């Protein structure tokens, strides 16, 4: 048997969120034939869930005056805890203002500067000047020296996704939705495309291209409590790692957002605190200034999430049947502000908790939010290990974010890397030739067909995919959370190894016919177990604390031994990733003090 259809293009983009779509536009602008694959209609991508905004150093708003790419660069490097690639960060900060302005031309209704004086919730008076009126404004976000986060209310991702997708549509770029890439086709040197499953009818199809671009988002759903959409499970990275030669970088770097809403774990934007919101404990006491006198609620996310957890460990959390939580208080911003500039989270809070945040407190707890790691690429977005394979956005470890991403830098990364990596893809593709090795392609199709046959017949076993999925989600919550310890991580690795072995013995309970959802889950699960193991094992081996990776048994950042990036390979037949390391080069800004967080506080005590 062979694949039902074969589609051939110059460029194949897997994933139609902001990163994938923007890269596709860049490739199409170069005259290349592009096909974009998406699990879902592109406008439903998780990029739409970005709320608070996009960082770009425009310097238009009152407290953005004096901002520049240099200041943005320093904030991003400090935010990353010196774990990121500074060359990438430099390109990013220089390009982000261009990206935001291009999006403006494409139709994003960015909020604009309104001239006049106003009093901030903390009592400061600021004045937006007449000369800046009408230019794109910005709000405050965590870990930034200036107000730099451009926004459309708190629906920024939505308006960006829609604007970028209008351009995809206008340019007539081909998008195939409800298609899932299930393996990469490669010959050990070049990537030739993907084997995919059509989620409308279950057909196996192949896509061949001179270059394949992975833009499949993060892997947050490996955790039971995540702000991420249900499709964000890291499957795109997993099919790359499954080649044995493409590594995932820094998978142990997992961000927990301070304000996931209890108990549904939907995001309450950082913009709520940026606009002046507070975090309160069970005594309605504003505790963050005690821990972070300078940045208060607006230290970087890793720091705020740790401080909240620390505070709850002291017994000062609010008890609930979902465990302890804290309160997000934005009542003092006033009804008008809440229901205009924070209206989407106000809606979410009403819809899912029946709480109007203009008058009531919102229950929050740090929740898995972002995957800093991903398919390791060079600064052009070219994946390590295979020619013709690229990755970008949350799926990639381009390494803009190192060990902690700043709020507002992820949607920014999607479009900025879409421009930079998209151009690199175009350049590569224009010089590449199509490889039609039918034998090789057929072999990859056969492997997938064999897997499907075995899942349906139960040849390898009768393990229930959903038991394993839940097992992984709980193991990640229990062992690879905000604070980590060696023994805990060792237990996590053991549990995940067991789950991985079971995932190789999954058998369907259903017939697997047509677009059967159980089959989709079953095909993915071994890859998700490998990704989870890459996170947990990477965390175990990294014996320091850096950014979001916080080891209680190794509480200090260790630049002597750990100024390096983890590369997790998966060798066939193994039940653990093989870890390799590469140096992190601090080209501009040598490692120093972040100016917030535990190490800064310790420094002051001396």
């Amino acid at each position, binding site marked *: 048997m062979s694949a039902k259809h074969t589609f051939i293009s110059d460029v194949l983009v897997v994933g139609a969120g902001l990163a994938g779509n923007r890269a596709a536009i860049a490739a199409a602008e170069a005259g290349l034939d592009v096909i974009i694959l998406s699990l879902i209609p592109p406008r439903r*991508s*998780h990029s739409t869930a970005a709320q608070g905004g996009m960082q770009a150093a425009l310097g238009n708003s009152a407290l953005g005056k004096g901002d520049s790419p240099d200041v943005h660069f320093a904030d991003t490097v400090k935010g990353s805890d010196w774990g990121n690639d500074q060359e990438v960060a430099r390109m990013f900060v220089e390009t982000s203002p261009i990206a935001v302005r291009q999006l*403006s031309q494409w*139709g994003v209704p960015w909020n604009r500067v*309104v001239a006049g004086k106003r009093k901030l919730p903390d009592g400061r008076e600021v004045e937006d000047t007449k000369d800046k009126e009408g*230019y794109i404004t910005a709000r405050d976000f965590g870990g930034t020296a200036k107000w730099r986060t451009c926004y459309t209310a708190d629906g920024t991702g939505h308006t960006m996704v829609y604007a970028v997708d209008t351009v995809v549509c206008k340019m007539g770029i081909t998008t195939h939705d409800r298609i899932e890439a299930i393996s990469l086709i490669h010959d050990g040197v070049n990537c030739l495309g993907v084997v995919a499953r059509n989620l409308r009818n279950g057909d196996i199809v192949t896509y061949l291209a001179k270059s394949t671009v992975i833009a499949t988002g993060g892997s947050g759903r490996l955790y039971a409590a995540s702000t991420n959409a249900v499709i964000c499970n890291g499957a795109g990275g997993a099919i790359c790692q499954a080649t044995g030669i493409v590594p995932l970088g820094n998978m142990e770097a997992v961000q927990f957002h301070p304000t996931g809403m209890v108990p*549904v774990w939907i995001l309450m934007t950082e913009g709520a605190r940026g606009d002046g919101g507070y975090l309160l404990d069970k005594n309605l006491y504003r505790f963050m200034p005690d821990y972070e006198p300078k940045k208060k609620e607006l230290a970087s996310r890793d720091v705020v999430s740790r401080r909240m957890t620390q505070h709850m460990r002291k017994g000062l959390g609010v008890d609930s049947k979902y465990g302890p939580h804290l309160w997000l208080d934005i009542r003092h911003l006033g009804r008008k502000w809440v229901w205009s500039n924070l209206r989407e989270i106000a809606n979410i809070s009403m819809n899912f908790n029946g709480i109007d945040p203009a008058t009531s407190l919102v229950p929050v707890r740090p929740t898995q939010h972002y995957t800093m790691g991903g398919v390791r690429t060079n600064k052009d977005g070219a994946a390590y290990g295979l020619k013709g394979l690229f990755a970008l956005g949350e799926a990639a470890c381009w390494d803009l974010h190192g060990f902690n991403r700043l709020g507002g830098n992820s949607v920014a990364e999607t479009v900025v890397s879409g421009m930079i990596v998209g151009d690199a893809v175009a350049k590569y593709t224009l010089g590449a030739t199509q490889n039609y090795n039918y034998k090789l392609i057929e072999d990859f199709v056969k492997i997938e067909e064999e897997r499907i046959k075995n899942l349906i017949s139960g040849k390898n076993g009768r393990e229930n995919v959903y038991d394993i999925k839940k097992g992984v989600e709980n193991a990640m919550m229990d062992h690879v959370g905000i604070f980590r310890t060696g023994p805990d991580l060792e237990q996590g690795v053991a549990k995940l190894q067991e789950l991985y072995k079971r995932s190789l013995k999954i058998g369907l309970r259903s*017939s697997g016919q047509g677009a059967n959802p*159980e089959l989709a889950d079953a095909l993915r699960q071994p890859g998700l177990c490998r990704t989870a193991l890459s996170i947990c094992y990477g965390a175990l081996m990294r014996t320091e604390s850096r950014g979001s990776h916080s080891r209680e048994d190794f509480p200090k950042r260790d630049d002597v031994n750990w100024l390096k990036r983890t590369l997790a390979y998966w060798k066939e037949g193994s039940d653990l990733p093989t870890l390799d390391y590469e140096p992190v080069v601090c080209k501009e800004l040598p490692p120093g003090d972040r100016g917030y967080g535990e190490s800064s506080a310790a420094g002051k005590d001396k």
Partner: protein
Amino acid sequence: MRQLTFSIFRFNPNIPGDKPRMQEYKLEEQDGMSMFVALTKIREELDPTLMFDFVCRAAICGSCAMLINGRPRLACKTLAKNMPSRITMMPLPVFKLIGDLCVDTGTWFKDLQIKTEAWVHTNKKFDPKALEEKMDNEVAEKIYEPDRCVECGCCVAACITANIRDDFIGATGINRVARFMLDPRDERSDADYFDVVGNEEGTFGCVGLMGCDDLCPMEIPLQENLAYVRRKMAAAGLKLQFQGVKVS
């Protein structure tokens, strides 16, 4: 806690011989249970063949629209506590069925974008060195209002015209056009828009029952936006007629 009975439409057109039917599942209600939680539980514990769509589960992506007890709603934000103990679920009408509760909104909306040319029409070339053009914040906020549409399809399912005419663009389509009309960056004239929506497939196909406005999960003021486009198009039509252009 109550025992809930879910009566769910089942039909997989890709399985030879499969026939449309209603199938019942029973679940114990949980605290704060949404239809997302309920359907996921049914798939993972009772019936792994059940097809439905969720992405964000936070009422911002528009994936999970379906008829719940006869009304088009987003399943993710429909809470069990607001429903009777017997809950029926049907796929949205108008859209092509993929299977069970999944419908093909993607193709329908893509066709709509192309038909209404729903992008900013401008002859300006982007200059990466130039500052952005200025805009009043109030204008930006006005554009954001119709731009909030998540293309869930509830307004289309609720629309009598869309249920009768295949080519009607629905409230979502007219609202999308309103979004570009409000946007000074779009250089189209009223006559250009008239070509797109000044007809029975567009603004003049609406018979004014306003099921769309009642059922929009994003609470977009559809009635207002539809009236805005209709007024503009009626005026544009008259103007064209005065100019001697034949308007059907």
